């Protein structure tokens, strides 16, 4: 299913952040959302997932043809959009295992269903810590758990807000490979990232946010990788 964002304006009580954002994510596609700190990546991600604040002041979002602009977050989730929130936000007073098993699973999915075992296979470290309280996990372990938790909903669009934060380099490879492996099962991915190398490796396409609150550039990942001027201009690399 594809995501369509058109003319999206989003803001908080105190400030308007996004001033007209348009893009789409097609089936099986991985899109990277790049931008410096504070440009509105999280704001966009939250708007898509129905998390308030911020509020959508204009424009619309459809997913698989369904208008989700005004839907509440649990309804959006049931349509197949899962989020790995920024800052992990695991359920601290639940054990690792409970964090996964508490998630309601969608039935209607194409590929192989996600189970707790499958997540543990993905991140063996979590299996070792399955009965620890999530709040006592290390930062990286929490990040793995947040990713595993999102997968447990059996999403068709996985939105990850800085999944690489706090993860050891070798784990990034694992994530890269596994997400790559999930393509073709119908899973699309939107990944907001600061680790540009990782993002460009994983993504087919890239959209960039800048301080105008719009998308000044979007295009193929390899285009961006090789264009030093663009990298310098929007990402200061």
């Amino acid at each position, binding site marked *: 299913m594809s995501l369509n964002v058109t003319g999206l304006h989003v803001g908080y009580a105190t400030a308007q952040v996004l001033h007209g954002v348009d893009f789409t994510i097609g089936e099986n596609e991985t899109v990277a959302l790049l931008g410096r700190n504070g440009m509105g990546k999280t704001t966009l991600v939250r708007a898509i997932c129905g998390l308030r604040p911020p509020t959508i002041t204009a424009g619309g979002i459809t997913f698989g043809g369904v208008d989700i602009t005004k839907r509440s977050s649990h309804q959006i989730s049931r349509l197949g959009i899962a989020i790995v929130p920024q*800052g992990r936000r695991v359920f601290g007073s639940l054990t690792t295992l409970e964090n996964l098993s508490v998630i309601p699973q969608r039935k209607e999915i194409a590929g192989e269903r996600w189970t707790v075992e499958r997540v543990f296979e993905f991140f063996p470290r979590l299996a070792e810590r399955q009965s620890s309280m999530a709040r006592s996990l290390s930062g990286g372990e929490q990040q793995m758990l947040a990713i595993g938790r999102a997968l447990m909903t059996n999403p068709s669009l996985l939105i990850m807000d800085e999944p690489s*934060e*706090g993860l050891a*380099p070798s784990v990034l490879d694992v994530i890269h490979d596994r997400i790559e492996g999930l393509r073709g099962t119908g899973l699309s991915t939107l990944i907001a990232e600061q680790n540009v190398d990782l993002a460009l490796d994983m993504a087919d396409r890239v959209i960039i946010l800048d301080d105008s609150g719009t998308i000044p550039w979007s295009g193929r990942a390899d285009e961006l990788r090789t264009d030093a001027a663009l990298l310098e201009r929007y990402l200061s690399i």
Partner: protein
Amino acid sequence: MAPASDPRGSGAGAPVLVIEDLGKRYGGVQAVDGISLVLEPGERFGVIGPNGAGKTTLFKMIAGDVTPTAGAVHLFGRDVTTMSTARRARMGVGRTFQISNLFREMTVLDNVRVAARGGTATARVFWRPQRAKDDASQRSLAALESVGLADRRDLTVANLSHGEQRQLEIAMALVGEPSILLLDEPAAGLSAAERTTLKALIEGLPRSLPILLIEHDMTLALGLTDRVMCMENGHHVVTGSPAEVRENETVREIYLGRRDKK
């Protein structure tokens, strides 16, 4: 309580931090196991290792948040193993938290001000407005400037983006003018541009300031430090110069990613 003698001046060669056979056990989890380490004055020391290796726990034992189940910690020549966090902070331990730990309902500038006054008598002043243009306020502004948050100073922290909160975290550690600095993944959540600023910022700190740095960004972890230790599952794996560690077989196998190996 002021430190017995000025830590930075004390016996030029005496190690600032000595860790002996330190261990921490949580129920069935041995988070840190037999780590020893000596940090010389002015040394910059990196700690790396897979997730859950025990890096943060090690920091917490140095800072005083967690009491070790084995071994001892000496700071500036004093045994501080059971000393409270606050007293260690007043001895000059400055630190950042891996998971941002900020005053969410206060403004950015007030966060830094409270940090700037930490451990000093000025924090107890109750008859003057805290927003006065005193020394603490000036240092706070400078610290915000240095991490690039000056234009955000009047926002409430809860309204900051994640990366901005990470920057604030660093500013709060620096503003207290610590005698030893513990940085737990300072670059996490920062964009490439901000990372460059951070790198320059750390490089620009006085050479006399000893720094312990946990990072998963190898450019920083290996680029900013004189020596690096790699841990795994609480154990010590290897300690050496950044180059040695990068080439170490075990480190490459358990920790480094494709992009770093190149």
